[in-house]
C-alpha cells in the first residue's frame, strides 16, 4: 500500500493506493492518528487507487474519523472503487462517512 499526502488550505489530502487490508491497516491507522494529533483534523481520503478494503481497513478509517471529530475536525472519503463502495455499503458505513465522487470537491467542501 502507498500513502501520498499533500496540503490544500486547511485540508490534508491523503491518497492511498493498493489494498487497505490487515497487512496495511495498522500502519495506515497509526499514520492517520499522528496527523490528527498533530493538528491535521480535516482529512480528505482519496480512495481512487484502493483496490480492496477489509474490515480492518474500515476500522482504521472509523477510528480516525472519531479522532478527527473529537478535535472538531472531519474526515471524508472520495472516489470509491466498486469493491470498496460495496464493502462500505454492506457495513452501512456510508451513513457515517461523507462520501464524494470527486476528490477536488471533497477538498473544497472541507476547506470551507
Amino acid at each position, binding site marked *: 500500500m502507498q500513502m501520498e499526502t499533500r496540503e490544500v488550505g486547511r485540508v490534508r489530502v491523503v491518497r492511498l493506493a493498493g*489494498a487497505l*487490508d*490487515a*497487512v496495511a491497516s495498522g500502519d495506515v491507522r497509526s499514520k492517520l492518528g499522528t496527523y490528527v494529533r498533530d493538528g491535521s483534523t480535516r482529512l480528505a481520503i482519496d480512495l481512487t487507487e484502493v483496490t*480492496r478494503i*477489509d*474490515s*480492518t481497513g*474500515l*476500522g482504521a478509517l*472509523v*477510528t480516525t*474519523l*472519531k479522532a478527527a*471529530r473529537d478535535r472538531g475536525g472531519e474526515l471524508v472519503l472520495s472516489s470509491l472503487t*466498486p*469493491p470498496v463502495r*460495496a*464493502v462500505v455499503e*454492506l*457495513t*452501512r*458505513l456510508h*451513513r*457515517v462517512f461523507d462520501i464524494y465522487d470527486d476528490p477536488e470537491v471533497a477538498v473544497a467542501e472541507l476547506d470551507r
Partner: protein
Amino acid sequence: MTSGLELTHRIEATATLDQARAFASATSRVLGEWGLPTERLSSWEMAVAEMATNVSRHGYPTDEKGSMELLLTWNSDGLEISVRDHGIAYDPNEVPPPPDPDPDDPSTWPEGGMGIMLVRSAGDQLTYRREDETNTLTLFTDIPRNTVL
C-alpha cells in the same frame, strides 16, 4: 451426491497476514479461471481475506505461527470456500453482529467486528466445524456448476 465434474483447489501456508492476502488473490484468480461470474469474484476474495486474516490474527496466540489451508470446491451442488486451521476454537456464529451505525452517535460506529458480516454477505450459508483440534469455516454459495457453464 454430486454429478458432473467437481473442481477443487487447495493451498496450505503459514498463518500470516501476507498469506491471508495471498489466499484472497488466489481465490479470485482460481474462481475466475473456473468460469465463475466475474462480478462476484471480488466479494469471494474479500470473504477469504477476512476468514484467513482472522486465523492469522487470532488463531495462533503464541509467537510461533501454525498453518492454515484454503480449499475451494465447485460442483453441481454449489461453491464451497473453506479455511481450515489447527488453532484455538472460534465459532463466528457466537460473535454478535456490529450495531447498525447511527450517524449521530459515534459510539455505534464500528471499529471492528465487521469481518464475519462481510464473509456472510458473500455467500448463502456460513458453517463452522471443530473436529480433531481443527477449525473449518465454510462459506457455501448456491451456484451449481452445471447452471453456470
